[in-house]
């Protein structure tokens, strides 16, 4: 998902380089993403750093293949879906406010019966 924004290697205050987090799905959550468990995503560069809230909105708009209500509830993930950022609980990282770094590893695990 590469946009036309110019990549900046000097990382000035205003322009962020594109980011490449890895997004994984477990526990049945992959069913909502065509059964694909691992995704290597490229986020378009933008002036402000990407945070989890924006990532989730981006996932909803670009990756979720069906039934968005089974993955998200409002701005955040549906209760029952766990989020790990670099193998740590996202509650320790600020949940939606966590700012993404390049090559971050995000895992969504569903603990629910239905998906």
């Amino acid at each position: 998902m590469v946009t036309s924004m110019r990549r900046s290697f000097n990382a000035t205050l205003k322009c962020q380089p594109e980011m490449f987090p890895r997004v994984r799905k477990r526990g049945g959550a992959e069913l909502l993403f065509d059964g694909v468990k691992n995704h290597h995503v490229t986020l378009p560069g933008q002036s402000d750093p990407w945070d989890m809230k924006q990532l989730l909105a981006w996932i909803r708009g670009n990756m979720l293949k069906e039934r968005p209500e089974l993955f998200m509830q409002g701005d955040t993930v549906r209760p029952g879906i766990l989020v790990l950022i670099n193998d740590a609980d996202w509650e320790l990282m600020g949940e939606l406010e966590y700012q993404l770094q390049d090559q971050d590893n995000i895992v969504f695990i569903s603990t629910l019966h239905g998906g």
Partner: protein
Amino acid sequence: MCQVEEDYNGLECNQEKITVPTLNRKCMKCKEGTAVLIIRVNDAFCRSCFKEYFIHKFRAMLGKNRVIFPQEKVLLAVSGGTASCSMLSQVQEGLSREAPKKLRFVPGIIYIDDGGACGRSAEERQRSNALLKSIFTETGFTYFIVSLEQVFSLPTSVLVPGTSDPDPSNPSYKQAVDQYIKEKQTLTEENVASAVAQLNIEDSAYSPEHKLALERLFSSMKTLTAKEDMLQTLRSHLILHIARENGYSKVMMGDSCSRLAVKLLSNIALGRGAALASDTGFSDPRYGDVVIVRPMRDYSSKEIAFYSRMFNVPSVFISGLDTKTHDKASIQRLTESFVTNLQFDFPSTVSTIYRTSEKLHTVMPPQSQTAEPASKCLLCLCTLDTKVDCTAEYCLST
């Protein structure tokens, strides 16, 4: 608090939720390691302390309840999901210790392939069976992979509770113990492993008539609630039969705290209030000779999911009847959605339900003069909670 229109996004009702968004928070136990997860309301654990905590909880649950005797044969009911696979890994962990605190029972594994009821194709079923078989073979325990269609060839004795006499002078139990001890003395460890390996059963073959019968049975039920209930009943009967046939006196189920909280509330909605203690308690003695135990009932889904992920517990995700269904598809599904959503804003929900369930006991019917055993439901084998005549011996549930 529990109104239908309430906004669950947490904007109004997050009094109980405490977020401390600090990176590099220290583990609350060892105070040294960097915390990697939060369990319960605000307890941060590092990786190694969490592992210790998880393992200790399992041992403590078994030790506290003392229902599993040394050398007893225990069947582990594994569905492929993270909870039952974590249970399997805990059993492996417990049996492998050299210390005197080593767990001392003989495990077997059972997996019921219910693809026929859930609408999975033959290829999908074979694939998941193969994946599970490789996991089971790794453990070295005896395993049974049985398809749900086999339930049609069960004898009617499965609907009769066995003798619940725990008296050690009961000849068949004592004989089994004596025989096992004798066998153990003659066989070396390698011989035992090879003898046990030959006992593995993969009975996933089923006749087309049974397959059709199962499909007809499930399509005749109008609601998903009824289907889920029926699936549960059939699965229990099949597990019970395999346990009885192969001399297993205990069956371990992988129900977690969260799942049991949901089960408790759904069962009340289904009219199974009288059987709550057996359905959700640690031990379920309704079958008499085979006792169901639930050693994972103290773990929340989050703890199990994290443990499974962090310590690479192999599991296989298998779609069930209610996968990808909407919130109101069945009573069970609706209850799960309700409890999960409530838990999000009030993190003590599940533990409160769990603690309440621990206080439940089955009411014993008054001793009658004729000493006639209380009538049991034909399907769930719990004591009937309603007075009915002989022609209709089903209890109130769907």
